[in-house]
């Protein structure tokens, strides 16, 4: 931190420059959040409804959402699809990170591979979902074409009626769009580790695998946790891909919580109160995840400094006691 200027006080400018952010945050973020929370306790149903009332039983909406089979299915789907995507994603990203940062074996074309692996992440998710719908289409589609012409199957397979296959495809799309991103974050984490440690390991005769597990992974803990939590929150909000790939089907197999909320509110019955209650449940889950991340990412140096101060005080006390 820089030292504040002495003399004239410029403190008010700190407030002035923060006004646009605070104003817009209050109007477009905080107010809608509170509004959503309030709607969760009302009978606000139907389009253009401005005359809603609070329910006699305040938690009726929450109760009916929690006991709604579709909602519990969507929660389970969200977690299952997220895990099916995250486990291969982090494994492959770690493997690529180990290869691309290896000191023993320099891999050529790293720049090219990074550009290619990251590319799916930047392409409109909505388009990717529709593209995969076209690729896996039945009875004729590129994937079925390959399966038949390579002799893996005798005839086309309809992926879209099989819930598990559909889940796998959604997880695969999610994997494809995020593994490059995760890899780049992890590589930058590894490059942030002091080269002295690696040098020392090399002098001690550690091989590539030992270096990776004994030095890289432990030093990457914070970055890994960051990746885990951002991915978890992102996964909980998965909307574009499951919505456009099969609109949650077949038989709710790819229904995620975000798609559930959208469908409750905007398709058919306009159950804004139920959607708001479901949103608040999601909000609580995400808040817990963020709290963990916040704790992990807090200002490390400051925490360390405070710890040292405490220890110094403690030491002084002991010394004082000895005297």
């Amino acid at each position, binding site marked *: 931190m*820089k030292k*504040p*200027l002495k003399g004239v006080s410029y*403190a008010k*400018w*700190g*407030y*002035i*420059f*923060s006004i*646009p*952010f605070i104003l*817009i*945050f209050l109007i*477009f*973020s905080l107010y*809608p*959040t509170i*509004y*959503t929370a309030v*709607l969760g306790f009302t009978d606000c149903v139907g389009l253009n409804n401005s005359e809603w009332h609070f329910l006699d039983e305040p938690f009726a909406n929450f109760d009916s959402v929690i006991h709604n089979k579709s909602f519990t299915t969507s929660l389970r789907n969200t977690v299952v699809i997220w895990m099916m995507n995250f486990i291969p994603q982090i494994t492959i990203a770690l493997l*690529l990170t180990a*290869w691309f940062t290896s000191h*023993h*074996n320099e*891999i050529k074309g790293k720049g090219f*591979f*990074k550009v290619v*692996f*990251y*590319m*799916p992440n*930047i392409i409109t*998710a*909505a*388009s990717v979902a*529709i*593209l*995969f719908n076209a*690729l896996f289409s039945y009875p*004729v589609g*590129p994937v079925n*074409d390959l399966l038949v012409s390579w002799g893996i199957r005798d005839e086309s397979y309809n992926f879209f009626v099989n819930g598990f296959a559909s889940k796998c495809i959604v997880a695969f799309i999610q994997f494809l769009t995020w593994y490059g*991103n995760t890899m*780049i974050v992890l590589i*930058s984490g590894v*490059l942030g580790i002091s080269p002295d440690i690696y040098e020392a390991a090399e002098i001690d005769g550690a091989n590539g695998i030992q270096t990776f597990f004994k030095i890289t992974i432990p030093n990457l803990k914070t*970055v890994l946790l960051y*990746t885990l939590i*951002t991915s978890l929150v992102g996964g909980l*909000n998965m*909307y*574009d891909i499951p919505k456009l790939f099969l609109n949650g089907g077949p038989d709710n197999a790819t229904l995620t919580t975000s798609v559930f909320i959208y469908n409750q509110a*905007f398709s058919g019955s306009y159950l804004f109160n139920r959607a708001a209650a479901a*949103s608040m449940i*999601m*909000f609580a889950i*995400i808040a817990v995840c*963020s709290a963990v991340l916040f704790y992990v*990412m807090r200002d490390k140096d400051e925490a360390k400094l405070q710890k040292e101060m405490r220890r110094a005080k403690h030491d002084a006390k002991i010394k004082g006691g000895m005297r």
Partner: protein
Amino acid sequence: MAAVANKKASSVIFKATAYIFCILLTVISLLPFVIMIINATRSTTQIQQHAISFVPSTFLKSNFDVLTGKSFDPFKGFLNSLIISTFSTICTVYFSTMTAYALTAYSWKLKKPFFTLIMCILMIPAQVTSIGFYQFMYKIGMTNNFLALILPAIASPTTVFFMRQYMIPSLPMEILQSARIDGAGEFRIFNQIVLPMMKPAMATQAIFAFVTSWNSLFLPQILLIDNDKHTLPIMVSQLNGDIYRTEFGAIYLGLLLTVLPVLVIYFLLSKHIIAGVALGGVKG
């Protein structure tokens, strides 16, 4: 001698494995998009006979006619997406830099609580507050209004966070002080001294803000109901509907048109984009 040869052999095996794996991933990552580009030029009949081909055909024009013949207006969608993305990018970058400046250059009583607040709202996604947001916008008559998507961009906690991270080590207080001695006002210092110094970070954040806004579907989909307000991702979502059910050529072309701007941006700026991701794991 034997040990050296052994080491060399294992190194060759290691490299072979790594390269094969990377090439495999390259194929998996690129193939869907290659198929999309090639099939955009092929007729629906050709696609139905052989869905995969690496030879472009000559039906681009007729696919385009089929596509635009049925309510799909890529130019309108392009224009709408461009307006929203451009203005929200300007808002995000300018005001986030300003907020980061307030958090870096001045010491004020509520600075710490304010930063804590930004950290707390960093992870809250638009989806969970969308119901209240929609109802609020509906009440004040701002559905079908681009401002409902542009103005919220002014308060972008992720961008503020990264601008602050960049600013703390790279903003020399001495320059600000000498500008003050020369009689420059605080707003002038920010606009004429601080902004130019922050250009590299602002450019990176601008790319991400633009792409995120360009790709976003959820909020535009619930707010923009009129057909001629639709953005490209909303139009894409209609390609799955009944009107294009069997027109595969047109669907591939529609997809290609929607991702083309992003692909162009990516291949022009991939170096900066990857450096930006490395800087702090921006999740779009």
